[in-house]
């Protein structure tokens, strides 16, 4: 395990050696390495295969922009495809694999694609695979899909947890390079609340990668010192391994902290990553810049790398990409690279500087005015071909090629509000332009201020300006001395050639592809991007866009500024989907609301069902019952025969008080409530303003100025919102106050002929609940079980003599037990939502199945409930012509005959009519087996239904290949006159 390319020095901890494997082979590295630096130190150049042509690929960069060195990390359910080796901190035992190759990285059968590249250019797939038609899904597409993609997911649930978090600050500083550190120091020392984030695991940015001095220290030492000072300030939070991935409206920044990715597995209970939502009054983007390559034929060979990345590997990680390295540059950075490499003992094959006036070099042979026109070598670069200033050619052997095409400021976050960067000619790059998110300033290299000294100064100045806007007066601190070399660059985008020259290495887009796009009139930048896929890879074009634009600009004869750019979108770096979800996943996707009798019901072995946000008992199976229907039938029959009890606490309850409460209810309900006597309850129908039924329920008048409204379980939240709308937005003049009482009360329906007898056991004797004293629709405050305050409502959803009794929630558990004990003599039977549903269908009460948002009071046969004596919401628009048509839908009952079943969702057809849309007359909304009637019954809507009782209809369910016959009847299967209720 010799690290053949490991140099002396660097910022790695040689006392902490680490083992890792890549494609099954074991290698060694050190703490402080990334997977990329360790691979380079071990002499591994070939790390991946390209997307389309399966070309061998190596490491290009030392940062998050890496397009090529994407690997699968970890094993089993933690397998993590498409992970950037350059951003992967090495830990002991790390397992990495190359991807998108078969059978092996060295020998990839799909490499054949490279031979057929002439037929696989931009957009070729739009022009073929059309014949025979059926072959697309069966043959072509499966082949394409199998070949496409890079890494593979494990297919297993992600075992790690993710958190979300919220932080607030005066100033968020993004990037801990010289500009960012200086900005954070300036603001931190001034006492501002500062958060400093950086995607690296140590502070310093390029200072950790360059050989230069700051304030008399090495750049790295100065950065470490600055970070230490910041960490000591109570008003500053330094967040390493944290990437600002997006800027949202009004100063909301999304920051992904990789809490545990540098560990083999997260510590128990702790998240793998946290997605922070940072609320920042002001922010400074100091995200640095990304070096671009120069396109030339076969410029994608392993070993061809950004010059700055080369310096980073040598200076910070003491890893030389090769023993002999050539340098290709159009600016002074190439020379700086040569100096650093030479200082580290790497042999420099030559400096190829495209500028005819290139500065002289005393480090290596210089070819001024020359370009690299081609590369060669199997699975990695071995030679480069130069085109010299005099037109001559020269071959040069080298193990790696450092390329410097100039630096692109990392403007991406400034574009997250659709801002457009602007072209700056002297640095040949885009800098932040119009539309930078409000509150965000840009400092240092991210806005094209490249030298360390000027970046430090800019960081300080931007911080001062931001603090001034916050009204904080800060005195200017001196800056450390630092390197201040100016940028001189002569743009060179691509070297003309006859082979393919890569622009976007991850998506395999070449100069030829841009040429084809131009030829076929895909010239707008967005057309170029979408047709060729340039810039659509994981780096969103950080390494490719400007090159592609420049090539298109040359072809169209426009300037790059005129050509413009595509839009950068969040996230800045690819971000796991799980991180956006946080803890709200699986069973914790949404909170679960439990009714007060839940624990008791669980003891009874109840089967539970998700009912909106609630978990409710669905039925209570008894020993020997093998099918849910047995349980439900028993619950229904027992209730109708004697007495049943059901927890109905989930219904929304809204306490409405105030001197105008009655008038308020008259407005929100279609029927009248101001006339309801105290101590009485009334069914109310609530419409939307468009005339459709919104909700229904009973509302009790508890006092002169006090009502209690109930809503359906599903609509509790929506109705409350609506009432607040009416109260605050329509009638703020009314004296009405609202408060939800849903959670306050445990409420039980006690239903059946013996309901009163059971209640008389628990209700304290001073309260007379006889039929005479407490008739149907009565309500009142009473006490139960020796003085516990309760409310009693004589209302019925089942059609039986029934009450709902409510006690404070804390007593709900005891209350159900007391009711069960009190009802023991009557074989009291707890029933769940299924039996509740059966009984309400038998009684013809509507629920969400019927109230589907397209149903009017008239459809329900309740047109008369829409009072014309007063203004109520929805009354006007309910009168529109199509809503009052004579042949409109009408709620009916349906009773199956001949042993057929009524099926909800079946469509209704009259006998003898064709089964086609023109003869479709309605549909079934609810269905149930009625043990009481001994038939399958249901509710539904059918045209002119009120006039068709007795008629036979067909229930067509072609979806399941079924049909049935049923007779239309009144929706009230049970006790249509309501005698039971009043008994």
């Amino acid at each position, binding site marked *: 395990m010799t690290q053949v390319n490991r140099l002396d020095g660097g910022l790695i901890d040689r006392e902490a050696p680490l083992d890792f494997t890549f494609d099954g082979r074991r290698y060694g590295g050190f703490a402080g390495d990334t997977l990329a630096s360790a691979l380079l130190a071990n002499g591994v150049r070939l790390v991946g295969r390209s997307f389309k042509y399966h070309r061998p690929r190596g490491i290009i960069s030392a940062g998050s922009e890496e397009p090529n060195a994407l690997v699968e990390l970890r094993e089993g359910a933690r397998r993590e495809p498409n992970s950037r080796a350059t951003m992967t901190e090495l830990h002991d035992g790390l397992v990495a694999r190359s991807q998108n190759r078969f059978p092996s990285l060295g020998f990839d059968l799909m490499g054949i694609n490279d031979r057929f590249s002439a037929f696989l250019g931009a957009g070729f797939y739009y022009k073929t695979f059309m014949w025979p038609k059926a072959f697309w899904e069966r043959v072509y597409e499966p082949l394409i899909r199998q070949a496409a993609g890079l890494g593979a997911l494990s297919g297993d649930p992600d075992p790690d947890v993710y958190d979300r978090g919220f932080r607030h600050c005066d100033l968020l500083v993004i990037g801990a390079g010289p500009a960012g550190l200086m900005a954070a120091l300036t603001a931190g020392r001034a006492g501002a609340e500062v958060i400093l984030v950086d995607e690296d695991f140590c502070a310093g940015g390029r200072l950790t990668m360059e050989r230069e001095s700051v304030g008399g220290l090495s750049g790295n030492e100065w950065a470490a010192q600055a970070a230490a000072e910041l960490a000591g300030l109570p008003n500053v939070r330094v967040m390493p391994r944290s990437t600002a991935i997006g800027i949202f409206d009004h100063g909301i920044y999304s920051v992904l902290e990789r809490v545990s990715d540098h560990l083999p597995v997260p510590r128990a209970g702790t998240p793998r990553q946290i997605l922070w939502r940072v609320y920042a009054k002001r922010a400074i983007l100091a995200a640095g810049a990304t070096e671009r390559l120069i396109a030339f034929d076969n410029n994608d060979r392993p070993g061809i790398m950004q010059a700055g990345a080369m310096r980073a590997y040598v200076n910070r990680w003491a890893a030389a990409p090769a023993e002999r390295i050539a340098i290709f540059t159009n600016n002074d950075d190439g020379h700086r690279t040569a100096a650093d490499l030479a200082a580290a003992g790497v042999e420099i094959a030559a400096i190829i500087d495209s500028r005819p006036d290139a500065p002289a070099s005393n480090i290596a042979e210089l070819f001024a005015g020359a370009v690299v026109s081609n590369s060669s070598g199997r699975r990695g670069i071995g030679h480069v071909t130069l085109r010299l200033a005099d037109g001559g050619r020269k071959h040069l052997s080298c193990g790696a090629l450092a390329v410097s095409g100039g630096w692109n400021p990392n403007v991406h976050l400034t574009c997250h509000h659709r801002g457009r960067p602007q072209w700056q000619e002297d640095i040949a790059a885009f800098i932040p332009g119009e539309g930078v998110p409000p509150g965000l300033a840009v400092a240092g290299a991210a806005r094209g201020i490249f030298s360390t000294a000027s970046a430090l100064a800019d960081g300080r100045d931007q911080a001062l300006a931001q603090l001034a806007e916050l009204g904080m007066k800060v005195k200017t601190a001196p800056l450390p001395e630092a390197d201040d070399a100016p940028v001189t660059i002569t743009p060179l985008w691509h070297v003309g050639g006859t082979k393919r020259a890569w622009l976007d290495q991850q998506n395999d887009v070449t100069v030829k592809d841009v040429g084809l796009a131009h030829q076929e009139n895909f010239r707008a930048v967005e057309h170029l991007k979408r047709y060729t896929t340039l810039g659509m890879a994981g780096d969103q074009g950080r390494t490719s866009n400007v090159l592609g634009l420049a090539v298109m600009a040359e072809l169209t004869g426009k300037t790059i500024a005129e050509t413009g750019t595509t839009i950068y979108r969040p996230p800045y770096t690819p971000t796991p989907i799980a991180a956006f979800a946080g803890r709200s996943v699986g069973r914790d996707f949404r909170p679960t609301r439990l009714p007060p009798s839940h624990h008791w019901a669980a003891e009874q072995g109840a089967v539970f069902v998700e009912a909106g946000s609630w978990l409710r008992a669905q039925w209570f199976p008894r020993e020997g019952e093998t099918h849910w229907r047995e349980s439900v039938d028993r619950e229904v029959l027992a209730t109708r025969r004697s007495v049943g009890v059901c927890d109905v606490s989930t219904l929304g309850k809204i306490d409405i008080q105030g001197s105008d409460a009655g008038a308020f209810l008259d407005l929100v309900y279609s029927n009248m409530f101001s006339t309801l006597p105290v101590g009485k309850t009334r069914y109310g129908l609530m419409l939307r303003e468009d005339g459709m039924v919104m909700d229904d329920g009973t509302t009790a008048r508890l006092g002169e100025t006090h009502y209690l409204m109930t809503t359906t379980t599903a609509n509790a939240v929506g109705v409350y*919102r609506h009432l*607040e709308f009416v109260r605050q937005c*329509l009638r703020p003049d009314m004296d009405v106050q609202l408060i939800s009482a849903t959670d306050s009360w445990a409420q039980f329906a006690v239903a059946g002929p013996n309901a009163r007898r059971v209640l008389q056991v628990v209700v304290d004797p001073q309260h007379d609940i006889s039929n005479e004293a407490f008739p149907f629709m009565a309500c009142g405050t009473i006490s139960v079980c020796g003085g516990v305050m309760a409310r009693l409502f004589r209302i019925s959803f089942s059609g039986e003599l029934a009450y709902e009794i409510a006690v404070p929630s804390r007593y709900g558990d005891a209350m159900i037990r007391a009711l069960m004990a009190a009802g023991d003599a009557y074989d009291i039977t707890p029933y769940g939502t299924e039996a509740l549903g059966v009984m309400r269908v038998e009684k013809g009460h509507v629920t969400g199945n019927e109230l589907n948002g397209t149903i009017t009071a008239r459809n329900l046969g309740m047109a008369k409930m829409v009072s014309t004596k007063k203004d109520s919401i929805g009354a006007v*628009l309910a*009168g*529109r012509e199509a809503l009052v048509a004579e042949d409109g839908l009408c709620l009916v009952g349906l009773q199956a005959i001949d042993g057929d079943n009524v099926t909800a969702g079946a469509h209704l057809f009259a006998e003898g009519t064709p089964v086609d849309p023109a003869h479709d007359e309605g549909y079934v909304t609810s269905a149930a087996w009625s043990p009481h009637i001994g038939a399958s019954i249901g509710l539904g809507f059918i045209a002119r239904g009120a006039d068709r009782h007795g008629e036979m209809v067909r229930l067509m369910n072609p979806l399941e290949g079924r049909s049935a016959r049923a007779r239309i009847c009144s929706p009230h299967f049970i006790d249509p006159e309501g005698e039971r209720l009043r008994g």
Partner: protein
Amino acid sequence: MIIEHPLLGPRDSQEFTCLGDASLLQRPDASADDAAETFFDYQYLRDNPAGTHRELWYHEMGDRSWLVVTRDTATHEILAVELASDVVTAGGRS
């Protein structure tokens, strides 16, 4: 987004539910002869500007206030936030 609640200061828009155009505050007179037409207009037609838009937000995960937020629909910049009840009351309606 952050909504500067007139009583509570800056709050994440996630705490709110947006209903839509604040013209919904202007519920027409149901007893007027032209109520069918005015209610149709009230309920269904929208200016839908690309620019300054007055709209109703409900602080559902907060203090349950209905707010009138004046917001630029092209930039999302929020220009003013008022309590809906204040707006209605100041408008001299009912």
